[in-house]
């Protein structure tokens, strides 16, 4: 995984730019997308290690980092919102952004088993970045800062 900061900032930048240009989506919708953008990394529970009911934790939590598993987690999360289906759709947009970013990563072998449980193929990886690389966080951090300044300027100029 790239870090959660990248997973949060990339969709935030994209949707804020969209919002600045077209006046939508609302900040609430953006927050839903950001929520979805971190859901698959609930699978980071694997770093706890160990076993539960005789199964390795890493194997047990693997479905959380797949499309089907993340869609189910998003489904459960969406129940807390009044329009659950609409919330689920936006959360899933975030989930997709998560997998798009994770597909940039390099691994010695393996990677995402995105189509689980239908197909056990582990190679959904473009191999462009290491998860510890600074390039992506620095670029997204810089872009977010510029967009944040831009939105603040917009707020100030609307008030004056």
């Amino acid at each position, binding site marked *: 995984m790239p870090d959660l900061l990248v997973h949060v900032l990339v969709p935030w930048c994209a949707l804020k730019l969209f919002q600045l240009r077209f006046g939508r989506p609302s900040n609430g919708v953006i927050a839903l997308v950001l929520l979805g953008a971190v859901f698959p990394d609930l699978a980071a529970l694997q770093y706890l290690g160990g076993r539960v009911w005789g199964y390795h934790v890493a*194997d047990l939590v693997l479905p959380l980092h797949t499309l089907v598993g993340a869609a189910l987690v998003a489904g459960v999360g969406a129940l807390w919102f009044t329009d659950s289906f609409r919330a689920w759709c936006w959360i899933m947009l975030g989930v997709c952004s998560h997998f798009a970013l994770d597909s940039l990563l390099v691994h010695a072998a393996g990677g995402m088993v995105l189509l689980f449980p239908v197909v056990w193929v582990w190679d959904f990886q473009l191999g462009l970045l290491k998860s*510890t690389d600074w390039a992506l966080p620095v670029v997204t951090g810089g872009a977010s800062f510029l967009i944040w300044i831009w939105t603040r300027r917009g707020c100030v100029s609307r008030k004056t």
Partner: protein
Amino acid sequence: MIALLFLLCVYSGEAAHSHFPYPTVRDLAESKALYVGSEVLVYGTVTERDEGGVWLSTSAGTIRVREVRASIGDLVEVLGTLEENDSLVPRKAIVYPRTDFYAMFARSLVGAVLLVLLFFRSWKPRGWRMVEG
């Protein structure tokens, strides 16, 4: 949905390891001799190094990885051929510098805090539902 997710997790717990394309340290922990000459995936922390490579501390014991340059404390992920004497000839190796590895978790913490702030600025709990505003 929760029941379905639970079933998927149990299925994965049962089947994931056997579907992974390479033996891992988990297999090596049971018997290294069985995998001599095979390609294996190993993940561990560098404990020693010299001109010829590094020694990784893994859950299957210490494994020598040739031709890899890394500092002590770095994390290394290697796909390579296991030889006798617990030595590995790498085909592909990824080195995660120790400081960068911890920085990744620190950035994730910042990301999680940012998400909570942004989320609760737009959504407020009302009863057991979240309401925009």
